[in-house]
């Protein structure tokens, strides 16, 4: 009985806090994405050659964890199979947040573009009872900072 009460408590807490946190995070992500929309991030390896640029490696990482409620849903989903929706938003948030952090770093350098953007994902704190604890997402790329006059090659 006590187990059940603790479980229900954790579920409610996880659900309420998790939902609020997620909404808040998405709001902030969307707001920052708008602000940084002028800084292009491109997966291509070939930068524009019409000008001279300084280069610098920029990166942003995020470790994000899933709440108790979503973890329970994911465990149930593992039993029945199908789309694990509770992790989709988790990873979506982690990726966008990492990219934003990378862009913020590039912006601080006065970069004009970030080229060759790549992502790396790792799940940490696995092994404890096979439960999924948290995910790290790293976004990295090369920031191009204009330095020469635009007509030089």
């Amino acid at each position: 009985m006590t187990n059940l009460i603790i479980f229900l408590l954790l579920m409610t807490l996880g659900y309420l806090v998790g939902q609020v946190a997620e909404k808040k995070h998405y709001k902030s992500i969307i707001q920052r994405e708008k602000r940084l929309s002028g800084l292009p991030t491109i997966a291509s390896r070939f930068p524009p050659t019409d000008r001279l640029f300084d280069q610098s490696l920029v990166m942003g990482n995020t470790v994000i964890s899933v709440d108790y409620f979503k973890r329970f849903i994911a465990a149930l989903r593992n039993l029945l199979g199908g789309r694990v929706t509770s992790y989709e938003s988790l990873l979506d948030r982690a990726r966008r947040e990492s990219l934003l952090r990378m862009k913020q770093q590039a912006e601080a350098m006065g970069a004009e573009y970030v080229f060759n953007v790549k992502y790396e994902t790792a799940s940490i704190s696995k092994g404890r009872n096979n439960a999924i604890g948290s995910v790290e997402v790293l976004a990295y790329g090369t920031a191009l900072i204009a330095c020469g006059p635009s007509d030089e090659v």
Partner: protein
Amino acid sequence: MLISNMEILPGKEVKTHLGLVQGSSVRAKHVGRDIMAGLKNIFGGELKGYTELLQESRDEAMERMQRQAQAMGANAILNVRFSTSSVAQGAAEIYVYGSAVILE
């Protein structure tokens, strides 16, 4: 929609870069498949259930990436990369991303 993991396509030129697009999908197989895969581990060989699982995920992730590119008005996605991570036991995440561009 042209999808390629090259960044320069012979005879085609990129008119406009539109930025990164991405698609991801997390899927799990039901427990019966997990148990069968566990048994299969004794003998080795292809884990058909998981092959299928990852392929389904990959298709869905590609489809989502294309939807993003379409919404931006791109006609090609270049330099596409796949990455796979196992977020949970028996569940796999497929992530695919690339540059949305408008080709000449």
